[in-house]
């Protein structure tokens, strides 16, 4: 194929493609695209109630508690620290005869966590 023929072929192809023109998309196409984009972008995925920061804080507290528990008194003396709590500690002493103190510390820590979380989660739910 000569250079001249190649040039003519190039010219013919260009002319043909320009004559064919572009297809006209339906008018609703743009509208549909924009609607789909807006709809998908306004969709808000469900947020976790606990933020990463608070999860870390709870984790640190739990690890700290597990470490600290080794240093906490394991005798009945703990319940005699406060005189006002004597009645309560008397009761605790009674039930702690069979239950180890560590177990009670665990219940206490769990209770604190629940109390803190209820207030915290309530605030978060209100803000959503």
């Amino acid at each position, binding site marked *: 194929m000569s250079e001249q023929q190649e040039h003519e*072929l190039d010219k*013919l192809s260009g002319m*043909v493609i*320009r004559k064919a023109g572009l*297809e*006209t998309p339906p008018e609703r196409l*743009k509208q549909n*695209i924009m609607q789909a*984009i807006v709809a998908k972008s306004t969709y808000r995925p469900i947020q976790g109630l606990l933020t990463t920061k608070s999860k870390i804080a709870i984790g640190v507290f739990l690890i700290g508690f597990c470490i600290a528990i080794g240093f906490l008194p394991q005798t009945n003396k703990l319940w005699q620290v406060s005189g006002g709590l004597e009645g309560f500690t008397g009761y605790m002493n009674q039930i702690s005869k069979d239950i180890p103190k560590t177990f009670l510390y665990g219940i206490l820590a769990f209770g604190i966590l629940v109390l803190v979380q209820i207030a915290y989660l309530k605030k978060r739910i209100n803000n959503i």
Partner: protein
Amino acid sequence: MTSQKEHTYLKRILNGDLEAFSYFVDTYQHLAFTIVVRIVQNREDAEDIVQEAFIKCFHKLSSFKGDSKFSTWLYRIVYHSALDAVRGQKRSLDTQVMEAQDFYGISDITSVLDQLMEQDCNTIIKAAIQTLSPQQQTIITLYYYENQSLKEIAEIITLSLSAVKVNLFRARKNLYLLLKDHVEFENRKR
């Protein structure tokens, strides 16, 4: 490289101005639709594919680095979406290989096409384009209509530069042969 204007619109979109995306839809929907219609040969299917491709493009905008033209990036998504759809329909992606012994009468074809009524001419040309493979249709459309460089076309089609050159030549040759048949048919009618 992406133009300054497009960069501005991209920034706006990434900052949450969704309406700014309509600029890209307005600018590229016609050629995107043309590429897809020619590949899938059905306007309804093409509409769905183009819509999905634009949405995909929107969601991937943050990954667009701007080191190529925005149009190159977009047409790549559009082209491959159309190709996936055709593969799904198990339609052949190949075109028959046509052999030309010589290339005579190229100027005759041009003059016959000029003499034909616009509508007839369009029908003949579109029929000829439809017989090309999806790859060749896209290459020839991007090359002559969008003035994309061969390197950019290679990026869109995901082919090597030399393969694009070969396919462009084959597309031209096939178009010539198909149009020659039509022109000879027209001449016999006269």
